């Protein structure tokens, strides 16, 4: 009984933080190239020392017919070095299929496994894209988490990424 009660109280205290949300919009540009493959994309939060604070999303060829979609994860070079090579994929809540050209929204709230234990601070949101027979690009946007106020920032890639926007709400 006592245990149940304290559990309930904890839930109440944590309730305001749970409302915070991060909405990330990533544009996969439409490219006029002779051979096109959808890019692999990794999205993560970086600490000031460049280590990974939280993995938010990885889009890769999860349903590859030969089950070798993970063979090209290394091409997301920064992510691979800083996080990917020590993770097992596919991973629930992290990995999913590649996306077609267009804008795609990733919504992550404070209860998400990646954010719920994240220490408050200034982070860089990093979006890295790598395309088979194409190039690689990294776009960075500063993010404060948890947010003190609603903030919307965006940055634009030049090659493999279009507009990347992040909208945080407390």
């Amino acid at each position, binding site marked *: 009984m006592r245990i149940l009660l304290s559990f309930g109280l904890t839930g109440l205290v944590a309730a305001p933080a749970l409302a915070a949300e991060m909405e990330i919009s990533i544009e996969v540009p439409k490219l006029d190239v002779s051979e096109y493959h959808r890019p692999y994309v990794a999205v993560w939060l970086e600490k000031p020392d460049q280590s990974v604070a939280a993995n938010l999303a990885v889009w890769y060829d999860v349903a590859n017919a030969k*089950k*070798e979609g*993970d*063979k*090209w*994860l*290394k091409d997301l*070079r*920064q992510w*691979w*070095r800083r996080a*990917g*090579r*020590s993770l097992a994929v596919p991973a629930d809540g992290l990995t999913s299929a590649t996306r077609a050209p267009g804008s795609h929204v990733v919504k992550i709230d404070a209860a998400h496994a990646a954010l719920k234990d994240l220490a408050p601070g200034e982070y860089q949101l990093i979006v890295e894209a790598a395309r088979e027979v194409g190039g690689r690009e990294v776009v960075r946007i500063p993010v404060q988490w948890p947010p003190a106020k609603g903030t919307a920032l965006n940055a634009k890639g030049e090659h493999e990424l279009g507009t990347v926007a992040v909208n945080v709400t407390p």
Partner: protein
Amino acid sequence: MKTIFRAAAAAALAGLVPLSAAQAHKAWLLPSSTVLSGKGDLAVTVDAAASNDLFYFDHRPIPLQGLVVTAPGGAAVTPENTNTGKYRSTFDVPLKDPGTYRIALVTDSLFARYKENGEQKRWRGKAENLAKEIPATATDVVVTQAQRRLETFVSVGNPDEAALKPAGAGLELVPVTHPNDLVANEEAEFKLVIDGKPAAGVKVEIVRGGIRYRNQLGDTTVTSDANGAFKYKWPEAGMYWLEASVTDDKATANEAKERRATYSATFEVMPE
């Protein structure tokens, strides 16, 4: 039959030249990849050659005797599809487990200079053949032991260090920075050890590949400190070759007074 045998022996000897006579040509291994992801049917293929320009196989192949591939767990891996052609040797390394693989070509041989009837001659081979192959009438015999180690590294998934333990003989490199974690504009640190102990004051030559398409060699020499350590900041991404040699009187072969231990490695440096 005799002729054929002689030709084969001569070819084998000729093939040995590049690995031993490092001064003349650069000996190198070139892996198809050094950083891999995924699991299952993974492998790298490796070129082994000696040439002036890195990394172009336009001079001599390196024979694959002495090829030692170590798996992440420390076990030996049997190379597949080994072949020695006119300009290069090639082999495949199956990568069944995640972790770091060490690919090494290790040789230990004797060299002799001597005079016979006033004429300067040279010999190379195994210690047990020295006495019977150099004529009893030879004078001014100088025998040198040559220990040579040529390496490259490949990692699947998270790099580890189980395969990187030094063997304790000859000149070797002990990583402080993992050889599969090298990035342009970052500083890497390594330690040189000779017979397992720090090799201090050893000059290390570092050259980036792609020499054919630039006008200057652009090589750098760094020197190991009292602990055998040296640091280098990679100026740009690419395949790099480094080499260091130590000459001393610590020959392990009784016949030799002098020992020359050489270490070379190929490293891949990734873009930022």
